[in-house]
């Protein structure tokens, strides 16, 4: 046994030699090229957003220096600042709401045995496969007949309800991994089950909740279809729908530099979030998909 371990150690050290790296060279090349392409696209868009339309077309970017006024124009003349605030409001409230609804439910489904538990779990999982088109028409007719279209609250409520199944699904696996000792100890000390959840279990589940919330943040921030149908008014539009309508209008006015500035503004928040938290985001994807 001891010998085997030794052998492993030697082999491990060998891994970092030149020969090993040379074998991996084609692999490095492929992924590097792919990443280079991504960098080129994003880098060029950022450069172009500081340039002028004329310079972009004549391939003489920055001949007349930097043009930050593209951003001023996009933010204020084209209402991007308004769309941005809308998105921020929708995303922050919806993400909080999703956790408030999904976490308690996931906790009960993960830790208590009762009749119908399996059925409820399968129902929530099935929701992940229902195309948006199946739910949009009845929702629209109900919301219109209640005269609630173009309301922030309705859109936020929809965002919460739509993202609850995925969040429950994600958090169930998370709550299952927590030890049972805490609940038992709390029960012996006379702590009620509700209090146990809010005071003991929820803080313990924090890492899982943060991961799934970052994931939800990106989903809600980028959501397009629901907003297109339920909030298609300048004052209510989130960034995705706002950018779309702006791109269309800028194609007619021919303001390409302004259009690229708007793209950068829309792209920035999730990009920065990702820059700092990419490990968490990635954990959210794999944690959600691998069990299904």
């Amino acid at each position, binding site marked *: 046994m001891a010998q085997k371990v030794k052998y492993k150690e030697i082999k491990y050290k060998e891994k970092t030699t030149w020969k090993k790296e040379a074998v991996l060279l084609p692999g490095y090349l*492929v992924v590097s090229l792919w990443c280079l392409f991504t960098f080129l696209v994003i880098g060029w868009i950022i450069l172009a957003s500081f340039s002028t339309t004329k310079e972009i077309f004549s391939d003489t970017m920055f001949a007349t220096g930097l043009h930050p006024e593209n951003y001023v124009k996009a933010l204020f003349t084209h209402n991007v600042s308004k769309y941005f605030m809308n998105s921020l409001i929708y995303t922050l409230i919806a993400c909080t709401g999703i956790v*408030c609804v999904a976490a308690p439910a996931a906790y009960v489904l993960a830790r208590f045995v009762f009749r119908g538990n399996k059925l*409820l779990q399968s129902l929530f999982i099935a929701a992940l496969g229902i195309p948006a*088109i199946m739910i949009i028409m*009845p929702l629209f007719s109900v919301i219109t007949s209640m005269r609630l279209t173009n309301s922030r609250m309705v859109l936020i409520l929809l965002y919460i*309800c739509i993202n609850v199944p995925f969040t429950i699904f994600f958090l169930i696996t998370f709550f299952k991994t927590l030890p049972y000792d805490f609940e038992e100890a709390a029960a012996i000390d006379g702590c009620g089950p509700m209090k146990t*959840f809010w005071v003991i279990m929820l803080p313990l589940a924090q890492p899982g909740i943060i991961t799934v919330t970052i994931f939800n943040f990106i989903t809600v921030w980028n959501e*397009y279809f629901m907003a297109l149908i339920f909030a298609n008014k300048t004052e209510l539009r989130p960034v*995705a729908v706002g950018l779309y309508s702006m791109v269309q209008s800028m194609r007619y006015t021919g303001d390409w530099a302004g259009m690229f500035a708007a793209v950068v503004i829309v792209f920035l928040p999730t990009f920065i979030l990702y820059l700092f938290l990419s490990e968490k985001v990635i954990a959210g994807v794999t944690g959600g998909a691998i069990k299904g």
Partner: protein
Amino acid sequence: MKKNKVMMVTFLVPAILSYLLVFLYPTMRTTFMSLFYVENITDSVLKWRWVGLGNFKTLADSTLFMQALKNISLIWLWGGVGVFLLSMLFAVILTSGVKGKSFYRSIIYLPNVVSAVAMGTMWMQYVYNPKFGLFKKVFEFLGLKKLAEVQWTAPEMLFAALVIAYSFGMVGYFMLIFMAGIERIPPDYYEAATMEGASVVKKFFSITLPLLKDVIRTNIVLWSISAVGFFIWSQIFSPLNPEPSTVTPMVYMYQLVFGNNMVVTDRNVGAGAAVGVILTVIVVVLFAITTIVFRDDKIEY
């Protein structure tokens, strides 16, 4: 125990209510509505006119809808082949002990965190631009005159351009899931194979691929769901009056029920509901097929 019951009910009720409100009730109503002629989306059930399978017949007779179905099948097939090959290749490369793995992984996944509208605009207005586009520049630099002259945004190339741009972003997503699957495979398997002198290719086909069966299945289901819901990219690639080559069933439904342009003239919400039912059936059938094809029970290590 009684306390526990009260807690369980209070904790579950909001989630169940939200489910009934946004998933169960609408799905049932849409299914029901697909059997009626409904002129206006806000019409009450009393105004609906029973047509049985008439809406499905109308759709089958509509060339645009059939084109839309063909389009998503082609997106599913060609995009799927490209995305699965590339994401599997990247996953294998990044799990083979390269340095800077998490850096590469983050960059390749990046398009998925950015708004699809922003990504689509970058492709459509920059990468494919016939004047200053990246594709033109790169192909010119490489001396590939023919490729540099391709008009990506012309109607006959638009569909290919759409599939390429869409698939580019999806590669990162499926790569992550493949990577997680590969990392679950115990390293001893590979070590034993290496000691026996197995090549990289042999190891991939004899160890990685067979053990990834259930991950591949998950990915096929996820890819199918995303292909069925294909919408934003079509809108970006062909705004205003949709080009037939970019119309997907979702776009068709949108025009039929909410749209205000000339492509779909006859407004029938029931037919829109029928589109939804068809798409759901497609997802369920694909799910069933993958379950049968990949019947192998769960692998335990």
